[in-house]
């Protein structure tokens, strides 16, 4: 215990030094708007690099496209690309560090700058001295105003312009659009919420893909991206049965929509949920979402003459990017010495039969037959397979909350906060105002208010300002 004392005192001292450093050095730096602007532009700039340089390609690709000699722009060889992580910009440590720095800057700015500004904006004073109006660009004095009615008139005019009006004796204060002061704070806070939500998602979520033929059951296994704490999200106690996959085509032959009729089965194989999904309409079950993403041809169901039906898998053929094609080889005699190749392009129901010499011998529609190599080949069904994108993202509710607040916040931020002061001295009315954003429309508004307060000031009237004390509040000037 005794040994602990000096060290704890030391660490206490170290803590205060750290705290002071944080308060005096780090916080002002983080809250510096110029840092924020540099960060915004830096994130923008590095994001550009990720859209110009191909992302996530193979080593051979970068070696072919970014040769060392001559290097692009004299320096951008494949070695530079890979060393800096320019092949996966948005996942590099330096890009994530930039985002974290940005988040810290946001937080610092919210607490050390925005909240005090809002506090100041909510505090306001009546103007009780004519000279207080002088600093405002939009201020005027109007003579010949009835001593008892001028402020009441003004207050009525401002009321129709949706101002919130406060009056005390000869002084009047009116404001509108305080939402415009709160908006930016909501924007910053909601961006932090989105950041937090996305971190939760990347830590606890997973992505998977499954290619499943019609009529089969699968468990989610082919996971290609999972966060470190995603284990509990991956479903173990239920599986999915693909009742049917099909494609609707337009009369012109273009794809109209993909459909998968899916059943969720519990461990006993009982159906607990069922839904036909299509693109833009996923199935959700226990926090896991299954999206229609891709399709393929799994196999062919056929028979010869009066034989039982056979299922033969079809494989996707290399076409060099010229469309998708699936093929299978069907033996036509028992010793496999002869057979035909069957090709299919889509699920429209037609297969093309080629003989051993490679020439087209028949095209057969589903449910029909043709004679090949002396036997009657009947095509019963082209079995489609559905490509499902599967994911769980526990961060989504947080992200959506952030999105919602962000939308509200940016709309609020458009509102311009306007303040008007007035002071009556005898038959002279002083009026002044300011607005933070919409200077042009506010100027017009002030001038229109002044017009209702005719007559125009007389040039011979002089105003002796008192310059000794300036107690003028300047709410938002921090």
């Amino acid at each position, binding site marked *: 215990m005794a040994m602990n004392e000096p060290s704890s005192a030391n660490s206490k001292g170290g803590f205060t030094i750290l705290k002071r450093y944080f308060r005096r050095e780090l916080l002002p730096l983080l809250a510096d708007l110029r840092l*924020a602007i540099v960060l915004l532009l830096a994130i923008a700039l590095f994001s550009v690099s990720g859209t110009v340089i191909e992302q996530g390609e193979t080593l051979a690709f970068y070696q072919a496209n970014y040769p060392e000699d001559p290097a692009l722009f004299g320096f951008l060889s494949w070695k530079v690309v890979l060393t800096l992580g320019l092949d996966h910009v948005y996942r590099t440590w330096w890009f994530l560090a930039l985002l974290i720095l940005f988040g810290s800057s946001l937080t610092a700015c919210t607490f050390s700058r925005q909240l005090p500004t809002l506090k100041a904006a909510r505090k306001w004073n009546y103007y009780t001295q004519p000279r207080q109006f002088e*600093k405002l660009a939009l201020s005027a004095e109007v003579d010949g105003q009835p001593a008892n009615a001028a402020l009441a008139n003004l207050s009525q005019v401002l009321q129709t312009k949706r101002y919130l009006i406060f009056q005390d004796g000869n002084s009047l204060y009116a404001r509108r659009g305080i939402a415009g002061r709160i908006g930016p704070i909501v924007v910053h806070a909601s961006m932090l919420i989105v950041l937090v939500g996305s971190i939760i998602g990347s830590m606890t979520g997973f992505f998977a893909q499954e290619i499943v033929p019609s009529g089969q059951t699968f468990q989610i296994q082919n996971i290609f991206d999972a966060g470190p704490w995603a284990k509990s999200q991956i479903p173990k106690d239920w599986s999915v049965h693909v009742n049917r996959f099909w494609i609707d085509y337009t009369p012109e032959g273009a794809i109209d929509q993909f459909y998968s009729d899916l059943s969720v089965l519990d461990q006993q194989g009982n159906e607990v949920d069922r839904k036909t999904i299509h693109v833009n309409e996923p199935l959700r079950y226990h926090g896991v979402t299954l999206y229609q993403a891709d399709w393929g041809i799994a196999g062919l169901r056929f028979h010869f003459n009066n034989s039982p039906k056979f299922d033969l898998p079809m494989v996707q053929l290399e076409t060099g990017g010229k469309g998708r094609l699936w093929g299978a080889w069907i033996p036509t005699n028992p010793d496999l010495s002869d057979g035909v190749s069957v090709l299919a392009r889509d699920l429209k129901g037609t297969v093309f039969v080629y003989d051993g010499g490679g020439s087209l011998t028949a095209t057969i529609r589903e449910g029909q037959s043709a004679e090949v190599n002396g036997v009657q080949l009947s095509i019963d069904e082209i079995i489609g397979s559905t490509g499902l*994108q599967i994911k769980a993202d526990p961060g989504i509710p947080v992200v959506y909350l952030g999105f919602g607040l962000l939308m509200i916040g940016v709309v609020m931020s458009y509102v311009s906060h306007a303040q008007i002061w007035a002071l009556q001295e005898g038959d002279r009315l002083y009026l002044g105002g300011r607005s*933070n954003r919409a200077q042009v429309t506010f100027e017009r508004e002030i001038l229109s208010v*002044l017009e209702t307060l005719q007559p125009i000031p007389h040039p011979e009237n002089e105003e002796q300002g008192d310059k000794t004390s300036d107690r003028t509040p300047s709410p938002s000037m921090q």
Partner: protein
Amino acid sequence: MDLVSLQNWLDNASFAVLFVTMLTYWVGVAFPKVQVLPTVGATGMAIANVGLAALLGARWLEAGYFPLSNLYESLLFIAWGITAVHFLAETTSQSRLVGAFTAPVAMGITAFATLSLPSQMQHSEPLVPALKSNWLMMHVSVMLLSYACLMVGALLAIAFLILTRGQAVELRGSSIGTGAYRDARYRLRRAGQEVAPPATVAPQATVAPQAAVALAAEEPVTASGNTAVLNPPQAATSQAAPLTPQRLSLADTLDNVSYRIIGLGFPLLTIGIIAGAVWANEAWGSYWSWDPKETWALITWLVFAAYLHARITRGWQGRRPAIIAASGFLVVWVCYLGVNLLGKGLHSYGWFF
């Protein structure tokens, strides 16, 4: 007349009207004394606006879905948006300069859509499965409206830069409210009865812009802080004239209208990006996948966020925010069309775009 030939007629007519409108605005800037020219220009803009709206409406009727599925339709929609935002800018600023900048861009877009796009791209095509969603209308229309706002705002920033070239400028209008205070030299002069600013409502454009700008130029830049602080002048001067409002100059007005219109485009862009993210999450399972198009939308957002913050930053005052906004014009175009040159994706418009 059937819908298709009506559409052909309408897009040619819109292009022709916009061309004449552009020339009218330009001549109007060259001869500021001719009062009729801005009226003719505004009428031309209105005709083009209605013509483009009718064209899009005809396509909606013909195709049965909101016409935003290919490049041709989105170009026409953005041209319509620019003519609409033009009116907002023109009525707010009451300056004939606005049309001189917006009309050529609207004309250029319409010309490109009408004359340069191959005719098979001008036909409406059935939607691909991925786009069959109500989110399409939500996401795309809001995005395109935001592009229109940001483009007009950026154009006004360019106008401001041209107008104030070679001068240092103090900005007015920002979220913290810089520029609501009287200029020191303005007060001094007023006290000496040298300047008598008009107290009655005068057309904005006639208030001498150079005087206020030149005065502001002498404002010394004090210690570098974070946020701009305008110190109210403390000089004790006995006042000879009554207090009258200090009016905004033309440069102030252009700058503030540019700021307001960008301020309108920014929430739209935010909502558009979020709508796209939510749609992507509902349809494909990821709200953000760094697809080039969405990355560029984020870049656009970041650039204009930097602009909004630059306005409230001491040491970045003056023309610098306007330069960011003006470069935002390019960024919006890259985001809208340039990205599609990089490769195909969900946001491809077909053809080489």
